[in-house]
């Protein structure tokens, strides 16, 4: 024993106590990291800039062509959040998920950071001076017809500069291409109403019958239509709560919201429209009635698969509730006879007396140069044919990704190789940029200047896009700035006054301030006010509606029964977040569940449970979808909201490049589409592909939001009572 001291046991106990005390006092201090991070103050702040307090700037959304007005919250010089601009007549303070994800398009880790020049298989970083000089060298000595510019939909001052540049080069080859565009409806509207894009008043209609127009999801201007739809559904409005009937082969978000969703045999929408005209009976003009007389409800029912009683009921509802509105969407257009479908549907609208009431004239801007160059697929076809003949030596591409979206049958990628010098203006290293010889990195929409006029014009306003923050990467340039630099190579004198695209834009607006409502204000005030609102009213007139839909040219083919090697119809779906795949690299969009299937981070094959049972497929089976043009593999998802003769896959997935989130996520449906085209417009008939489905013997657990019972949860709990669709009284069904 040790005298006058602690024995071993006491020593350990005290050590224990002491250890506890040290641990307690140390608790909570461990994560303070003084002196490691730098805190950066402003050098010269503006008075309203207070750290940690957001400042809102107005701008314009560039995520799709609807051109919604947005306001961005900026804090400490960084944009954090986007919302709709309440003053906007397009979106009235609201913004969709696609628009919200604009922040991710800006901060995306896979954005291009410097100009890249092809060196074998690799891209070599070069300076902007070198890149622009190289373009100039390649263009020297070329004839105008050897140069082409491929873009998505463009409008506003960028379009003006683009056209000026092509003029300076003596070229007329501007191809505006959009893989999923309403160009069939445009043509049908032009024929039926005299305008391409009439303004619709969903909020004034008592009944809306929509043939596959997904106006709540991805159709033309979804945020605008959603707002009208909210009004349409209000019981307190004078017309009462409206009734929505959606007729389509594959349920869309709009279909899921409808009072009655009617599955229809793919491609027979026009026949059903004629059947409804026939069922309307008295009051239909004689010539139309004569044309519709063969479309008896029994025959139409046989063709379309819609019960005869329901066709009669629909006609009754439409007759009793005027004004109504009949819409033709992409599901009705995407056929070889898509224009005929759209024409028949427009005819129904006219017979019902909706033209001038719920279908209104569009707006014509006085300055047509600012109007959008609307994209369509036919433009790509012409470009592709010309490339195949080796016509082009230099091709510029901007805002579109045809190597990904063109059907494999077009052999676009091979034809692209025949162009000796390809310049891609791009945000990401996407499939088209990968094929280019020179890639120019673009500013994001939140860093760049621009103006836009949406195709669906609610009010005659020019929307202004302005930078919400400084460039993240010093070596990206705005598309306007690049065009201006290129123009200066050709017309140095004329563009000398403009240092950059900003000064071009400012002088273009300030010079016209009298026409833009700025009379009596000085230039700076006018310009600051314009930027503050980020929208300015343009002089415009309202076009004349000339309803002249006629039944005489209608030619609606009876549906061919598909038997043989490819028994099912493939209906590629345009989802609200993925669209044509241009934003596939935004992880928010990949992880936000599809509204109907709740699937995330992958594509899927929607199959009707009955069809699946016949083929022995259960949810999660990996199936191979084979068309005459190729095949893709994806997971099967059983879904009652689809016609039994059809299967559906979402577009926009399955990128081979474009960034870490897009690459190899899902399967690319564009590749297996048939090269079938609408006979009148040349638009790709997107729903004309027949496929067969095989199990490959692998099964996965589908990653989705809904519970294990999936869509059958409702039925199990007996919440909704099932009523046969022809027994439902639509007028009372609210």
């Amino acid at each position, binding site marked *: 024993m040790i005298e006058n001291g*602690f024995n071993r046991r*006491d020593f350990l*106990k*005290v050590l224990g*106590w002491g250890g506890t*005390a040290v641990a307690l006092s140390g*608790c*909570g*201090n461990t*994560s*303070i*990291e*003084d*002196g*490691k*991070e*730098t*805190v*950066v*103050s*402003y*050098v*010269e*702040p503006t008075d309203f800039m*207070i*750290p*940690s*307090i957001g400042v809102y700037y107005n701008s314009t959304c560039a995520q799709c062509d609807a051109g919604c007005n947005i306001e961005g919250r900026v804090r400490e010089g960084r944009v954090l959040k986007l919302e709709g601009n309440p003053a906007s007549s397009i979106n009235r303070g609201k913004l969709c998920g696609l628009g919200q994800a604009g922040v991710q398009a800006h901060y995306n880790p896979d954005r291009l950071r410097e100009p890249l020049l092809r060196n074998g298989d690799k891209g070599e970083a070069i300076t902007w001076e070198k890149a622009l000089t190289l373009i100039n060298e390649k263009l020297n000595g070329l004839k105008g017809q050897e140069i082409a510019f491929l873009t998505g939909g463009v409008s506003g001052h960028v379009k003006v500069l683009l056209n000026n540049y092509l003029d300076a080069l003596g070229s007329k080859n501007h191809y505006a291409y959009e893989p999923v565009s309403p160009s069939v409806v445009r043509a049908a509207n032009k024929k039926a109403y005299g305008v391409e894009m009439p303004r619709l008043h969903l909020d004034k209609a008592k009944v809306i019958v929509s043939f596959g127009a997904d106006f709540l999801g991805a159709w033309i201007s979804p945020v605008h239509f959603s707002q009208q739809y909210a009004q349409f559904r209000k019981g307190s409005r004078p017309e009462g709560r409206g009734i929505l009937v959606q007729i389509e082969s594959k349920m869309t978000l709009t279909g899921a919201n409808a009072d009655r969703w009617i599955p229809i045999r793919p491609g027979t929408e026009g026949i059903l429209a004629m059947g409804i005209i026939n069922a309307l009976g008295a009051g239909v003009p004689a010539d139309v009635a004569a044309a519709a007389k063969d479309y008896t409800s029994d025959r139409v029912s046989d063709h379309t698969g819609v019960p005869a009683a329901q066709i009669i009921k629909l006609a009754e509802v439409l007759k009793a509730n005027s004004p109504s509105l009949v819409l033709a969407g992409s599901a009705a257009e995407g056929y070889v006879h898509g224009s005929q479908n759209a024409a028949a549907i427009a005819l129904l609208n006219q017979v019902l007396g909706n033209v001038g009431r719920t279908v209104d004239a569009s707006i014509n801007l006085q300055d047509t140069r600012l109007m959008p160059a609307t994209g369509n697929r036919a433009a790509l076809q012409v470009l592709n044919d010309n490339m195949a003949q080796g016509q082009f030596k230099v091709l510029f591409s901007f805002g579109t990704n045809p190597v990904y979206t063109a059907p494999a049958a077009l052999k676009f990628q091979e034809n692209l190789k025949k162009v000796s010098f390809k310049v891609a203006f791009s945000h990401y290293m996407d499939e088209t940029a990968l094929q280019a010889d020179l890639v120019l990195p673009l500013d994001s929409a939140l860093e760049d200047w621009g103006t836009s006029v949406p195709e669906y014009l609610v009010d005659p306003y020019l929307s202004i896009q302005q930078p919400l923050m400084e460039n993240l990467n010093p070596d990206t340039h705005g598309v306007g700035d690049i065009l201006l630099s290129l123009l200066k190579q050709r017309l140095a004198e004329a563009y000398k006054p403009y240092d950059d695209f900003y000064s071009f834009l400012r002088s273009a607006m300030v010079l016209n301030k009298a026409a833009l409502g700025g009379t009596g204000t000085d230039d700076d005030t006018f310009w600051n006010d314009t930027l503050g609102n980020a929208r300015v009213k343009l002089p415009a007139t309202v076009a004349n509606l000339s309803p002249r839909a006629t039944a005489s040219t209608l030619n609606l083919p009876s549906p061919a029964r598909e038997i043989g090697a490819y028994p099912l119809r493939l209906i590629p779906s345009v989802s609200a977040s993925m669209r044509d795949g241009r934003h596939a690299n935004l992880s928010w969009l990949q992880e936000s569940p599809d509204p109907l299937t709740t699937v995330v981070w992958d594509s899927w094959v929607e199959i009707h449970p009955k069809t699946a049972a016949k083929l022995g497929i259960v949810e999660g089976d990996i199936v191979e979808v084979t068309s005459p043009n190729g095949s893709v593999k994806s997971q099967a998802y059983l879904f009652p909201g689809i016609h039994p003769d059809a299967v559906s896959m979402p577009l926009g997935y399955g990128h081979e490049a474009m960034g870490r989130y897009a690459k190899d996520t899902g399967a690319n449906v564009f590749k297996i589409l048939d090269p079938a085209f609408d006979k009148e417009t040349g638009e790709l008939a997107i729903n004309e592909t027949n496929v067969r489905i095989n199990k490959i013997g692998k099964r996965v657990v589908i990653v989705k939001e809904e519970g294990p019972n999936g869509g059958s949860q409702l039925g199990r709990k007996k919440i909704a009572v099932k009523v046969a669709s022809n027994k439902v009284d639509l007028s009372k069904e609210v």
Partner: protein
Amino acid sequence: MHRFLRLSFMLVGMFIATGCYATDTTLPITTADDLGPQIDQPIEFPHNRHAGLHNPADDADPSKPATGGMEINCMYCHTYARRSMVAGIPPLRKCIGCHQSILSVRETPRIKKLFEYWDAKKPVPWKKVHDLPDFVRFNHERHIQRFVFQQGKPVQEACGYCHGDIKTMTVARRQKPISMGWCAECHQKDHLVDATSTKTSHGPNDCFTCHK
């Protein structure tokens, strides 16, 4: 056993004593134990010169010549403290605003360096002295509004609750533990609602107040 009991009593007693001391008495503005590390800043900013007392002696005679600081209000430079979550490092323009007219120190090394930053239009890369973890949300505005504007406490006292007696320092150095327990301890105390009232209230005790 005897020894062990004695030892335990002593330890428990010490805990209770320090606990009572901590809750019942006002904490001294600086406790040497809680000092943060000494941090090298790009410019050794003299807080004592700017915020220090004009004449530091207790029996200062106003007629005597000034010996010390300028007695500038903390919020003259840290102007965002009363309006925002963060106190904010003063913008460079604020420094220059005064110093362009103070010719007596214009050629001193620190001020020369300051003007070099200004001429290059570059912010001074100050190091954070009080760096809370990212999961903690501290709001300066709430505290300054409560203590300075409602209770009428002197600014240096209110700031000093957390930052210590800055007016005696050159480069600021952390004086308090700034741990959760330390924050909560003050939130449990009774604080007067405003300068004239006798009502008291506690600081919020919700997790979500700071962790969101």
